């Protein structure tokens, strides 16, 4: 057995053992349910159509927010004007200096209860990194390539497809991959306060009725989704391999 696999198995055994012992010590399913009960709840959710429906809604909202952030970030990132950049940079500073909860609150005031608030919040949190990755990738095109195409001009189509996209890909894809992973978490957070459906709403609902097992089960799904996306992006060589023991 490989060292890394042995380490992972040992880690998870210790983790669940610790969890079990904590459950025994606290002795209150409403605060700290036993791991086997959470696991059973997690498995049962697989056949829960209401849960799957809400999971789908969250996925759609997060993808719409991600798409908007990427699309607008890509378009604006292509504008090389320094003054425009400084303007956007100031707006980004405002986006990044305020915590997520401020944006959820403001979005609730502007857009009211519902999907728009979730999508807006996801957009606000993802846009800065996507815009900056496009802008800096284009700003830092090596002089040698600029000189090459001045002497050996090529068509706009070839410039975009054979130079620009392959050149920009390694700068943007890791940011896009991380944004995809984050988008789900941000949307769930926004849904907690701003919607009456989606994973975030289910969490909020479960919290109100102290359905702790359900909350734990949902958090396990969020963890699995995030790890699954990470795995896919690593397999596609978009994200770097994690530390191996």
């Amino acid at each position: 057995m490989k060292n890394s696999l042995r380490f992972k198995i040992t880690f998870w055994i210790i983790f669940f053992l610790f969890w079990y012992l904590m459950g025994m010590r606290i002795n209150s399913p409403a605060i700290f349910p036993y791991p086997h009960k959470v696991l059973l709840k997690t498995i049962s959710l697989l056949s829960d159509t209401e849960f799957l429906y809400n999971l789908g809604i969250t996925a759609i909202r997060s993808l719409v927010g991600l798409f908007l952030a990427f699309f607008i970030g890509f378009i604006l990132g292509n504008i090389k004007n320094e003054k425009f950049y400084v303007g956007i940079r100031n707006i980004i500073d405002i986006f990044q200096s305020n915590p997520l909860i401020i944006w959820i609150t403001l979005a609730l005031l502007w857009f009211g209860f519902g999907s728009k608030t979730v999508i807006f919040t996801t957009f606000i949190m993802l846009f800065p990194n996507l815009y900056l990755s496009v802008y800096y990738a284009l700003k830092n095109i090596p002089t040698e390539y600029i000189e090459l195409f001045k002497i050996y001009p090529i068509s706009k189509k070839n410039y975009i497809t054979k130079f620009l996209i392959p050149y920009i890909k390694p700068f943007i894809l890791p940011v896009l991959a991380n944004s995809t992973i984050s988008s789900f978490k941000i949307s769930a957070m926004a849904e907690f306060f701003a919607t009456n459906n989606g994973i975030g709403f289910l969490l909020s609902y479960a919290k109100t009725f102290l359905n702790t097992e359900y909350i734990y089960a949902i958090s396990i799904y969020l963890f699995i989704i995030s790890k699954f996306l990470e795995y896919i992006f690593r397999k596609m060589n978009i994200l770097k391999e994690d530390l191996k023991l």
Partner: protein
Amino acid sequence: MTVINIINLKKSFNDKKVLNGVFLKLEEGEKIVIKGPNGCGKTTLLKIIAGLIKPDEGIVEISPGTKISFMFQNPIFLPWLNMEENLNLTCKDPSKLKELIDYFDLKDYLNLFPHQLSGGYLQIFSFVRTFTIPHNLLLLDEPFKSFDINRKEKAKAFLKSHLDNKKITLLMVSHQEDREDKEIADKIFNLF
């Protein structure tokens, strides 16, 4: 007809004077080799003529209708394209490209990517590319730098035949020690 007329050209990088009052005139079909020690501004002069760098002072007149081809000192290729794709991307004269691929026997290397080739081969591909766009002014920056002896001779022979009986003007940067430049050039221009 004067192809290039340079008057009192000056260029500095970070307060270091690289070109300090250069005067140079090239007539159509003339072949000049620029020589000088490292850092004397040979490459900078070529890049200013090609319009890649702006001078600080002075006048650079290039006759209208001049088509420039430039061979860079360090070969520049896109690392994600193989050599065939790299050459086809910028090529405007496929028959010339084919002729040169055969002449330098490069067929077996076309499928390789730049990082799979030695500096010498990249230099040859860069040399080949120079002749695949329309030009009547050739700017070559140390073109034979990393060539082995056989390829150097072949490249020189090709360059000579290319320049023969044609109204192509040549401005070539060469390292101080290269003695065979006299075979190609009408004049040597020392840049100090």
